[in-house]
């Protein structure tokens, strides 16, 4: 008799406040599992974003630092520069990372800051009630694009992984998704590689995870997974954009 799956020690027992079926929960769990499996929990300092994951500091079972909206990479930089031997990661949403925090993420990559960023792209501002994000799909209705996002007025969604991949300091950049078990497994692997990149001091690492927001997409959790697969993946191709081994 063997355990196939049990709750990771990487997470506390606190129940998530996320909406039913929100894939933030899956991503949290994967990060927790990787931290546990790599034996990093005693050594890790995580940085929580402002966004639905703002309470991440209550969930990850390691030292945690809350950051101002968008500034998690700067906060993580501050932590890492004081504690260069520790493992430092930030968890950010797409409003947090791709909008208000654009400068901070670009420059964390540019400096080759030895931190790992988990970037949860759900194409919307979840926490504040479903406003448009820079990652919102064309035609997608949000509370601030009530007629559907229109490229003429607001441009086309920004692809962060591709953008950061142009930066030399970026060691590992990969885009993954959690819409089914196969991809959940791949996501976990990517998260692991990202932390390894940090451990091996190969530069900045980021995993962009396509994620759902059933509440603000106005869909059931199951329908949301489908919408992600059908609409987001074609525009946000999954795959690796930068790999420390390729560079080395």
């Amino acid at each position, binding site marked *: 008799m063997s355990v196939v799956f049990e709750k990771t020690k990487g997470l506390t027992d606190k129940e998530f406040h996320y909406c039913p079926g929100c894939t933030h929960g899956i991503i949290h769990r994967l990060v927790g599992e990787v931290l546990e499996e790599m034996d990093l929990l005693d050594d890790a300092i995580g940085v929580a974003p402002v966004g639905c994951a703002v309470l991440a*500091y209550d969930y990850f079972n390691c030292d945690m630092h809350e950051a101002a909206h968008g500034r998690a990479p700067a906060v993580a930089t501050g932590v890492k520069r*004081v504690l260069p031997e520790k493992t430092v990661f930030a968890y950010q949403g797409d409003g947090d990372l791709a909008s208000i925090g654009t400068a901070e993420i670009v420059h964390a990559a540019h400096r080759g800051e030895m931190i790992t960023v988990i970037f949860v792209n759900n194409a919307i501002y979840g926490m504040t009630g479903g406003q448009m994000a820079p990652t919102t799909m064309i035609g997608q209705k949000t509370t601030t694009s009530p007629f559907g996002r229109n490229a003429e007025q607001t441009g086309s969604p920004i692809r962060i992984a591709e953008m950061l991949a142009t930066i030399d300091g970026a060691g590992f950049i990969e885009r993954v998704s959690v819409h089914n078990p196969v991809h959940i497994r791949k996501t976990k692997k990517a998260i692991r590689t990202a932390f390894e990149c940090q451990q091996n001091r190969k530069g900045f690492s980021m995993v962009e995870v396509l994620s759902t927001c059933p509440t603000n997409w106005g869909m059931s959790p199951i329908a949301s997974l489908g919408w992600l697969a059908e609409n987001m993946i074609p525009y946000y191709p999954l795959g690796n954009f930068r790999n420390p081994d390729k560079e080395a």
Partner: protein
Amino acid sequence: MEKVLMKGNEALCAAAIRGGCRYFFGYPITPQNEIPEYMSRELPKAGGVFLQAESEVAAINMVYGAAGAGGRVMTSSSSPGIALKQEGISYICGAELPCVIVNISRGGPGLGGIQPSQADYFQSTRGGGNGDYRLLVLAPANIQEAVDLMTEAFDIADYYRMPVMILGDGMIGQMMEPVVFKTPAARELPEKEWATTGTGGARTPNIINSLRLDPAELEKLNLHLQEKYERVRANEVRYEMHQTDEAELVFVAYGTSARIVKNAVAVMRRQGVKAGLIRPISLWPFPERAFDELPGSVRALMSVELSQGQMIDDVKISARGRWPVGFYGRSGGMIFTQQEIVEAGEKMLREVSHVSGV
């Protein structure tokens, strides 16, 4: 101890490193550029880290992270750069982290100019971040004092777990004066058990945070902060009373302005006018009690600032209607001469006499 001739900005850095500063995050802006420049040269030699951030916003958030991780950390900027740091400062205060912030201020508003100014008094003492928070704001009047305050600043910050701001102007930053580096009495400081340094498997996780979704919890945090601020008010007020004995007219001035006012006081005293000066050194907590020490001879107060009148609010609050409060100021980088102050002071005294029918 040997006297050395040093530029204010550099002397501040040397003092900071002596005071234990090991991390610096900042962004260039005139007239404080010698600070990051000095730090980029000297911090690595002291085993510390200098990092130029991509912006002031990033810099203050790096400070937030570094302070949370237990580092003795500092940033510096000038007026518009401090404006950009306001959100981060509010977070640091909310999360109760220690750090030192230097503002070598310049003329405003907006891009303004780069010459000395004291128009950031509100910015420093009333913040511009959100919520009920305070910084301990220290305003040196010369480089020796800048050095003395800075050397102690990290201890104070650690002691109260709050930011200490050193507020100077372009003159303090750019001028050279002789200084002596003294070793202040170190405060007894508790371990930073709250810092996010990794649990090491030896304790439950630490969390650095200013979020309290439950209003009752947020109120509790605020009451705790206020209680701390009360302690600061009780213990950290600093000021100088200069020639206030038998004074008829008492100027109130801080920083470099106070030096010019001191000369004006000397001139006035020579001319037989009993002038004096209250020089707040801590702008917050403001030395209200200094006003209670004034002799009965005082007939008027005058706030003298390199601004259009900001500290005057605190002077009025402290005066509690006991004396009329006048104002003299220049702005935009224009510096008053001692003669201007003498004249303004004499004019005020005449007006006061007139009003009281003498």
